[in-house]
């Protein structure tokens, strides 16, 4: 994880600005103050970020060996044994495929809605903007677990206020439950993404629009040709966070296991990690975690590269 993605641009250019070959011994002003500021965070970051990542990698390289069937179990170095097991594990790749399908549909829908609402809030077309902004953001205050419990009731064939719909369409069936969960996630996060995009819109100086308006450009044209290109960085940011969130899906499907037997213990990669670790087979679970983290990283990083290339054109 040494190559971070999004905000790197500015760090990298800063590094370029300062000459690489600095004199070896430079006198650092205020070393004591710097230590006081940095050390608490650095220690905690090392203990609860770096060491766990290292430990997960270490653990994933171990295998359990027994002397005979009932002998004492010992952990020994097993090389990439666990990773071979990961790549041969059908349910794991099915769960990856499931969250990818989920992301391909849910992320564009959610961000499309968020963008639409942000543009409407920023246009002169609406009244009561304060109200809409708050109303759309409120679901973000509902924890994923609670949102899932709530929607679980709303989907249920006999308790729902919309029984006319839910008694005919089974949202909790094997075919639909993934999209029922997608709706819960969308419901929670649209307003949050809307606000990120909206605050990027607020930062655009209004003079930019004046010329376009004098030329007779309508709101739609201004939004499409001026606003959207200018807020692209914010949209990319929300995209990356959404991709990460999708691959990490856990709370909502875990809650839905109560409502629907179609959600199995291997439904998403993280559920897989959880159920494998409670067998317990921690080494395999650690290998799942490492592969999942790498997949997340590769995906969000290539998304960033892809969007940057498109912008560059």
């Amino acid at each position, binding site marked *: 994880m040494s190559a971070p993605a999004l905000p790197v641009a500015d760090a990298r250019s800063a590094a370029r600005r300062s000459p690489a070959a600095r004199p070896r011994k430079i006198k650092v002003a205020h070393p004591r103050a710097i230590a006081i500021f940095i050390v608490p965070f650095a220690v905690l970051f090392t203990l*609860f970020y770096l060491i766990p990542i290292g430990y997960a990698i270490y653990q994933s390289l171990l295998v359990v060996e027994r002397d005979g069937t009932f002998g004492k179990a010992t952990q020994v170095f097993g090389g990439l044994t666990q990773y071979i097991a990961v790549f041969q594990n059908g349910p794991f790749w099915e769960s990856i495929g499931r969250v990818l399908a989920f992301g391909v549909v849910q992320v564009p829908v959610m961000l499309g809605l968020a963008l639409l609402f942000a543009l409407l809030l920023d246009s002169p077309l609406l009244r009561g903007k304060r109200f809409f902004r708050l109303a759309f953001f409120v679901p973000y205050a509902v924890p994923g677990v609670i949102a899932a419990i709530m929607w679980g009731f*709303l989907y249920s064939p006999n308790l729902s206020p919309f029984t006319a719909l839910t008694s005919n369409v089974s949202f909790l069936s094997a075919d639909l439950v993934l999209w029922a969960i997608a709706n819960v996630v969308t*419901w929670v996060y649209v307003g949050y993404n809307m606000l990120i995009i909206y605050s990027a819109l607020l930062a655009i100086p209004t003079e930019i629009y004046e010329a376009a308006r004098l030329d007779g450009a309508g*709101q739609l044209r201004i939004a499409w040709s001026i606003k959207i290109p200018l807020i692209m960085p914010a949209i990319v940011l929300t995209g990356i966070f959404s991709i990460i969130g999708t691959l990490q899906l856990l709370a909502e499907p875990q809650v839905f296991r109560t409502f629907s037997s179609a959600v199995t213990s291997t439904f998403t990669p993280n559920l897989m990690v959880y159920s494998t670790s409670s067998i317990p087979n921690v080494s395999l679970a650690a290998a799942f975690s490492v592969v999942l983290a790498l997949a997340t990283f590769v995906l969000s990083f290539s998304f960033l590269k892809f969007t940057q290339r498109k912008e560059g054109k």
Partner: protein
Amino acid sequence: MSALTETPTATRTAKRARSNNPAPKVAKESPLSRIGAMTVMLVFTLYFLIPIWWLFIAGTKSSAQFTSTNPLWFADFNLFANIGNLVAYRDGVFLKWMLNSALYAGAGALLATLFAGMAGYALAKYRFPGRELLFNIVLGGVLVPATALALPLFLIFSQVSLTNTFWAVFLPSLVSPFGVYLTRIFAAASVPDELIEAARLDGAGEVRTFFTVSVKLMFPALVTVFLFQFVAIWNNFFLPLIMLRDETLFPVTLGLYAWNSQVNQIPELRGYVLIGALLSIIPLIILFLLLQRFWRNGLGAGSVK
């Protein structure tokens, strides 16, 4: 970045000026697009608020009326009786969960903000070897999702016999790489070097300058970091799920999850889950409303620049 320091009122008046004071020849928005825009927003207002409205209504009903009356309108108002029952159930374990959540999220977010703010400030305002490396590693941390760390954290905590304790959930939540990123950018833009220099001339130490002068200038960013960390901890599920066995240590999300998974065996829990869910979202809504002025402006800081 300039929009961040603007007060919301200033932004709003600027926008109003923009729409009320168009140049003479500019076409007015057609009433049709106004109606279209309002319709879209009103339909989605229903989508966002009806579930919460339903939950509130469900919370006011006795369990007999829950199934027999209109789910979206009041029957006999039993909200307070329901809350009383919930609080009394199993020696008030629900209240214990709410307090746990408040402690995990409140104290955790406060300390996380302090540490992230100090680190971000030092990264923005001091030059020292390894500064860029440190910042890049922290940025890598932004992309590591909390859930990916839960399992290895569990393994490490079990080595030192700290699983199933308060600390197992509390300590990992003190780290906010995103907070360092945000406060660094914000400090670079909003704390002038001249001001720090002036404080130095007045004889104030570096640390004191940070706490008396710089913190005030960084306040919007700090509130944003606090709020996001608070929400992240309050909503956290995986870490407590694998760390905790003792239900008196549960945060409210895990507690309600545990009840909800027993609803099929113990049907009376259904009512408690619903009223508990309602109560559990109120603190966050209040926090958002109280701090709106800050998060509205700070939120964009990460992406605007």
